[in-house]
């Protein structure tokens, strides 16, 4: 099920809220777990078995790892290690099998000229997110950073929790371990959750979907009707679409979490105002990059084993980060692309950039980010290359044509709004207002804007506007 649907807004959400708040506290995890299973089964009635199996594996291996170290939390001996590795093999295995098998078969067929038939498996939605969450649990238990969860329902609630189940953020077990057993739902938190959810919904339904329609149109336009400006417009549209879609989902997840008393960490922090790519990756999908940092980069030795080793580690991490986004060459290239830029920045570029004016730094970062989305957006290699040729004037296209002017004219206001919404400007105005006139801000602005966003989003959903789900590949 998607948050951006009338089924979620006007059936699922009211039902889960009312059930959650009328049952005694002791049953609240059970309510969340059952509703989360329904939420997942809604789109994946078969693959739900897989998720339950993953939870069970994590549950058993976690408890076993804890037990086998006989009360010494620093014991990372053989038994806990084996237990952790079993869970890692299970999770990575599942991910490899469902997500990557066909890619490897295709690649092998291409390289060796074999004729192995692809499995044609449908990727279970959200598997990349919940596998990583499960992994964070078993690894942290192994490292002795958290105690294993004895209550199956609590662990199940953690993995399956519907707010972050299908599009993140990747919530780490240790961050919400306490909240799973004892959390306080408060009115202030609930209302902050409402505000956050409505803002996220608006970002997804009004902004991302509208500009996504432009990218969709441009990428489906025959080559001979395009222009250089149009191919830039297309990729800029995608740049906005993926940010507002993804961060909108994260906002909705964080907001829903608050409604049920959870505090999730932030996942985005205005990534498009970055002044370098290093900065960008501190602001974009924070839960993913910190996951890779803590569970891949640092275990590989991080920066503690010499410069060369650090460079290798960085490239490994960014290759994996790219590949995590989808089983395709373009995602790999996209990861390596950022790996190389980050390396350069680390080695010398940041120093040079530091001496240039701020505007140059921002333009530098934006250009590389947008170019990166040009790699990310096209899974078809020939379309990807064609688009780059078009963007850089090698596609034999006019600089601009009347069709492009039309697209611009239809989306000009939207693009201005998108630019403003990509910066912290609106938040700053809100914060200022909250200080200067707290009553007006909390009693008028917040409720009016939240409800208005909710209703306008319902209008877009009822009007059957373009409403894609971008994370089938993740």
């Amino acid at each position, binding site marked *: *099920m998607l948050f951006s*649907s*009338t*089924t979620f*807004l*006007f*059936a699922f959400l*009211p*039902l889960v*809220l009312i059930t959650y708040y009328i049952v005694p506290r002791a049953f609240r995890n059970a309510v969340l777990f059952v509703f989360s299973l329904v939420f997942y089964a*809604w*789109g994946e*009635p078969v693959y739900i078995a897989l998720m339950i199996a993953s939870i069970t594996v994590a549950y058993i291996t976690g408890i076993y790892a804890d037990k086998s170290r006989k009360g010494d939390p620093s014991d990372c001996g053989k038994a806990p290690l084996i237990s952790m590795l079993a869970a890692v093999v299970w999770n990575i295995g599942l991910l490899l099998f469902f997500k990557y098998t066909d890619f490897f078969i295709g690649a092998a067929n291409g390289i060796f000229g074999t004729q192995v038939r692809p499995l044609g498996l449908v990727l279970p939605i959200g598997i990349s997110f919940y596998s990583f969450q499960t992994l964070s649990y078993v690894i942290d238990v192994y490292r002795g950073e958290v105690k294993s969860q004895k209550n199956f329902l609590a662990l199940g609630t953690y993995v399956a929790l519907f707010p972050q189940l299908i599009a993140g953020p990747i919530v780490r077990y240790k961050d919400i371990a306490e909240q799973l057993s004892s959390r306080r739902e408060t*009115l*202030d*938190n*609930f*209302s*902050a*959750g*409402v*505000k*956050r959810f*409505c803002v996220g919904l608006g970002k997804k339904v*009004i902004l991302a979907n*509208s500009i996504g329609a432009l990218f969709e149109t441009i990428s489906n336009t025959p080559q001979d009707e395009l222009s250089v400006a149009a191919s830039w417009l297309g990729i800029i549209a995608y740049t906005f679409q993926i940010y507002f879609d993804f961060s909108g989902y994260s906002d909705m997840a964080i907001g829903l979490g*608050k409604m049920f008393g959870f505090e999730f960490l932030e996942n985005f922090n205005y990534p498009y105002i970055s002044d370098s790519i290093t900065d960008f990756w501190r602001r974009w999908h924070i839960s993913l990059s910190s996951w890779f940092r803590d569970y891949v980069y640092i275990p590989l030795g991080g920066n503690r084993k010499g410069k060369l080793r650090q460079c290798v580690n960085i490239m490994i991490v960014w290759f994996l980060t790219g590949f995590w986004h989808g089983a395709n060459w373009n995602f790999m290239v996209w990861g390596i692309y950022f790996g190389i830029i980050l390396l350069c920045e680390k080695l010398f570029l940041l120093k040079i950039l530091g001496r240039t004016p701020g505007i140059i730094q921002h333009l530098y970062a934006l250009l590389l980010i947008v170019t990166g989305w040009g790699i990310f957006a096209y899974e078809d290699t020939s379309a990807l290359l064609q688009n780059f040729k078009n963007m850089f004037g090698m596609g034999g296209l006019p600089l601009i044509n*009347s*069709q492009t002017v*039309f697209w611009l*004219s*239809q*989306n*000009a*206001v*939207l693009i201005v*709004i998108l630019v403003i919404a990509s910066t912290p400007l609106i938040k700053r105005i809100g*914060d200022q207002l*909250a*200080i*200067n*006139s*707290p*009553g007006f*801000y*909390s*009693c008028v602005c*917040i*409720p009016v804007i*939240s*409800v208005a966003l*909710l*209703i*306008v989003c*319902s*209008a*877009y959903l*009822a*009007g059957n*506007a373009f409403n894609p789900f971008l994370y089938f590949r993740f």
Partner: protein
Amino acid sequence: MRRPTAKPTARPTGKPESKVRAGSIITAVSFLAVIFGFAVAGAISPDRERSEMENRPLMQIPEFSLKSLKDGKFTSDIETYMSDQVFLKDQLVTLKTAADRLLMKTYQNGVYFGSDGYYLQDYQENRALVEKNISCINDFADSVSGKADISFLLVPNAVSVLSDKLPAVTQTDDQLDTSKFIKESLSDSITLCCPFEELKNAAEKETQVFYRTDHHWTSEGAQIGFESLMTSMGESVPEYSFQTEKLSDFYGTLYSKAPDASAKADEIHLYSDPENSVTVNYVSCGGDHDTPPAEWKKPDGAYVGDSLFARDPKTQKDKYAVFLGGNFSLIEIETQGESDENVLIIKDSYANAAMPYFCRKYKHISMIDLRYYHMEELSVSEYVSQNDIDRVIFLYDIDFVNSDNNFVWLD
């Protein structure tokens, strides 16, 4: 979430904490009121069969089965059901258009929001298809040459006739290019009439030649088209003495594509001549409506009307179907018109509004709609020879020639 905290510098009116508290209550309650309100209202309000506003059937509650659950059809049907039957659906759809217009979008779902409340349908030329369709018409002309005179009333659409009402920037193609191409490629044996100038001049003199909310021409537009055709054919224009009936509250197909609260309803003018009795015989009833108008059903099951206007659609959304009750495979009309010629009109829905004028002119009129005239007993050219057709008139709008694939049925 950063909540504003009470600072000593905050204005000294009341306690900020209590205001924040009150704000939390207002926010939470209004949010819950909306989601529970829509949930409950949606559950208790009766489901609608179709949306008149959007001119389409709405999803009904799906039947549950294990199989449909397993393959995901059940849940996706529920999603469609929930969005189709959402409470205040029509108002929400209108609100969506309003939001888009606030974003200064002048184009939605294939239509432009023109000036003076006109919806104008976008036109993207498909030269290959036009070429194919014209060659079908040419082939047909060859096959009946010598038997019947052939003419072609090619109607330009509002997007070109009323191009001054379009937004400043559009992506529409020029229909004059298409009509020029058609003129060049059409067989010399066919008399072509494209009343672009005539319609444009009339529009400039404040005659409403196209509906604001629908893609069709008005009865007045159709009259101009008819008279231009007569002039091109070298025929006299008949005298009319019409009585007028007006149908108000017409929101047409273009409105359905982008329902806007500020749209102004159209009026349909029905011109009938009390001196000219007509008999409308629905010979072959395949068409875009299940049956011809029910009021004309005879005891033997045949449909024979005594008017060009159906009573039923007057109360329905699709009010343009008032003309003949919609489009049907083959209709034969007998009138008290001036000329004894047997006329066959091969047509799209634009012809329907022009029938009052044709009926004043011709006694025997057949109308064939190639979208439905498939696998009939007689091919069109056989129909021409067996019914001693003297005159074949093609009546199509440019958009139709540019998009329809049924001209092959002329063969």
